[in-house]
């Protein structure tokens, strides 16, 4: 069961890399091939995430590093109940957004690049949802967020560029807040694996440093998710 998990990341990633190959061809052929590929991959991911629903939790160790006596050296993908729900949400929204965008994207140039960015965005979000490691969340959050900066500016008109610039600045600052929070937690616990961090945090008293890390995470992820005090960039970027 757990062996299926890497496909949620690898499949759209490979699709994105392949779709970029179509960029230099005449836009019609490259765009159409990329579109069909994106549709197939996104559909597969939606079906796969639905098939995962209701299974028991599983962990996939990337690179096959063993985890003797609960001390983990490698990175892990974790699939528990909440992850299953989020996977279905992400992939369903991705699939239907892709269906909607077929006609919308017709008026732009460089459509193969659109599908490339879209698939990598999907891959990054799946990786964030599945990841069991704090820093890995940061890396793949950056993957998806950089793809979305480019997608916001896709039309390269005045307003789109302005919206994208605001989004890039806020997004970079919030990413660095998240990184700061990860550093604080690493100093306090000596671990990066989420389960072990939670385990170690339970063993130490909740001092101001833990609150600072929590504040960094709330500010960082809140800016990214446009939670209410940090929502100013959202209407511009997604008109």
């Amino acid at each position, binding site marked *: 069961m757990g062996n299926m998990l890497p496909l949620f990341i690898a499949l759209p990633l490979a699709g994105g890399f392949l779709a970029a190959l179509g960029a230099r061809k005449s836009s019609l052929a490259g765009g159409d091939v990329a579109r069909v590929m994106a549709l197939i991959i996104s559909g597969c991911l939606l079906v796969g995430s639905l098939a995962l629903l209701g299974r028991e939790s599983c962990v996939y160790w990337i690179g096959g590093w063993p985890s003797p006596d609960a001390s983990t050296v490698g990175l892990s993908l974790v699939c528990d109940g909440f992850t299953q729900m989020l996977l279905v949400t992400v992939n369903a929204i991705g699939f239907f957004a892709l269906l909607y965008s077929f006609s919308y994207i017709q008026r732009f140039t460089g459509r193969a690049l659109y599908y490339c960015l879209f698939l990598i965005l999907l891959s990054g979000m799946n990786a964030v949802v599945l990841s069991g490691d704090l*820093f890995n969340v*940061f*890396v793949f959050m*950056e993957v998806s967020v*950089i793809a979305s*900066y*480019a997608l916001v*500016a896709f039309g*390269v008109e*005045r*307003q789109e*560029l*302005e*919206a*994208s*610039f*605001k989004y*890039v*600045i806020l997004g*970079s*600052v919030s*990413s*660095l807040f998240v*990184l*700061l929070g*990860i*550093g604080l937690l*690493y*100093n306090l616990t000596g671990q*990066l694996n989420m389960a072990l961090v939670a385990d170690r945090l339970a063993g130490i008293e909740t001092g101001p440093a833990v609150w600072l890390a929590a504040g960094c995470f709330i500010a960082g992820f809140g800016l990214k998710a446009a939670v209410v005090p940090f929502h*100013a*960039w*959202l*209407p*511009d970027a997604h008109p």
Partner: protein
Amino acid sequence: MTLGALPYILALVLMLIGLYVVVAKKNIIKIILGVCILEYAVNLFLLLLGYRHGGAAPIRTAEQADTSAFAAGAVDPIPQALILTSIVIGLGCLALMVSLAVRLHEKFGTFDMTRIRELKG
């Protein structure tokens, strides 16, 4: 040593200067530089977290045959690996920001954010 937290606090000051540049300045290039300063400061903070007094670089040479002695004397390799990744990510972000700045200057003829204001947000 009583100043155990002083380097951290100086890194925090650097972060806040970067944040100040991002928030208070109106020039696109200045804002990008502010993000750069913030990124340096966070990388610096991670690096400071990994150091241990008298620590050597975590690179084994042929003379260091004793693993436990080496492990007791080397600095923490994890923050360095994290910083290497985050430097490269920062470079990617910078490339994107700079290309946006170039296009904005092309369209609006200025780097002044107060005059690039077609949106309300």
